[in-house]
């Protein structure tokens, strides 16, 4: 268990200056995510064009892992359609939970999250944004909780 595996430079950078932070006025879909264990809250809003996520923003308060994960996620999913986002989520989930798995080659920056699985208490911090995005895509308007 190495701290530098968890707090990699790219993660610290996205925590310090989160990308796509804020909200979209009159979004096509939005969802609130809540981790009652640590009090993390985030809101994701989407602009959709048919099946495609044209724009995505997030806001809220969370730890470095949760903020960086959300920031990197928004960059990764912008412009993708639901099917591609679903595939990406599966790969991230595998990365976060399966010991010894190699990051899928097309994960890009998201591969920086591979250190999280050594810290089981923090996996939910990294996955909260993905579950929230899923809720927004599936239900259009929802609140989800990690518990």
């Amino acid at each position: 268990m190495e701290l530098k595996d968890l707090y990699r430079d790219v993660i610290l950078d996205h925590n310090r200056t989160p990308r796509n932070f804020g909200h979209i006025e009159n979004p096509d879909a939005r969802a609130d995510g809540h981790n009652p264990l640590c009090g993390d809250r985030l809101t994701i809003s989407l602009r959709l064009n048919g099946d495609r996520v044209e724009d995505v923003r997030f806001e809220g308060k969370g730890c470095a892992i949760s903020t960086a994960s959300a920031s990197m996620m928004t960059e990764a999913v912008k412009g993708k359609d639901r099917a591609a986002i679903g595939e990406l989520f599966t790969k991230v989930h595998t990365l976060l939970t399966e010991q010894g798995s190699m990051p899928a080659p097309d994960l890009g920056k998201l591969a920086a999250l591979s250190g999280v699985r050594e810290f089981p208490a923090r996996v939910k911090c990294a996955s909260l944004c993905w579950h929230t995005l899923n809720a927004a895509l599936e239900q259009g308007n929802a609140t989800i909780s990690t518990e």
Partner: protein
Amino acid sequence: MAANVLQSAPAQTYDVERVRRDFPILARHVHGKPLVYLDSAASSQRPLPVIEAVVRYEKNSHSNVHRGVHALSQEATEAFEGARDRVRRFINAHSTREIIFTRGTTEAINLVAQSYARSRFGKGDEILITALEHHANIVPWQMVCEQTGCTLKVAPIDRRGELLLDRFVELLSPRTKLVAVAHVSNALGTVLPLKRIVEAAHAHGAVVLVDGAQAVPHSRVDVRALEADFYAFSSHKLYGPTGIGVLYGRDSLLEAMPPWQGGGDMIRTVTFERSTYNDLPWKFEAGTPNMSGAVGLAAAMDYVDELGLDAIAGHEQHLLKVATSELTRIPGIEIIGTAAHKASVLSFTMTGVHPHDIGTILDAEGVAVRTGHHCAMPVMEFFEVPATARASFGCYNTVEEVGKLVAALQKVREVFG
């Protein structure tokens, strides 16, 4: 660390190294570093005399209590009822009729909520709590309000985390049927002015329940001197086992209350038409109780009495003073809860770093602190923080460990820049 603080030794001579040898878990390493356990407010560790008392009971004396004429059943009953008397002496209750064993503080409060409050309260009645309560002293009363139509009132606190006593008194009225307050705040460490709270509540005819979970390990609690009507606490914060706690209740109140849970042990006779109930305290103890837990709790009380609660408190206050002074010096750290009178609990935040990240980095250094909302979400909301990190000190912590906390916090700064 600053030399002047390190040299201000506590008034008593307190041999903390000897105390530490009584706690086997403190010899552990975590992530390759010696364990620095600063989470006793969540659950304290157990000394050998407690562990051994439980093992002795399990190895030699276990059987069911209050049943059967065989030797083991009698030994188990004696051990269990002996533990009850140990608790009575520890809190200076008048009689063992007033000592109900529960699963913990939470169950004790729920017992009063469901047996006392639910059967008496109705529309127009009020329950008064404070803004610094643990969820266990909020939610049971909200449930009673839903069940009976009574109203929950909340007395505010100030930015130091102290109860605004004047506002509390203003909220009291003939409608106030029950006051439920913490003795010590788990999230902030504030010690509440209980004598004055109880006097004011009684002057308005309200019954008082005290959540003593965080107070019992740090100060001598005398329920008769406090004149509290109900006092609830847990064993596992007092160096005893989990799964057992105590509800003290005034005899006359308990006697008039209906049973809460039904089952074996709480009855005198049962027919299909009607059952009659057992005497106090067993009327409130349905089913086979936690005997080994009670035995462990009694041993924990022996243990802290042997060390002396005043000596423990003096030592902890010294640690709190050193830690407060050291953390105040670290740029970006804000201490949440700065009441004049505090137990050894130190909640804090760090600019630009979420408490969960603080917790993870401290853990990697072997330092165990609690991070999160501490089951006191309204307190977090009041201070406008999502969570805090909380270091809490027990009888076995040392000034050197405070130094390790400070060094680990410097590490947090290094990681986050």
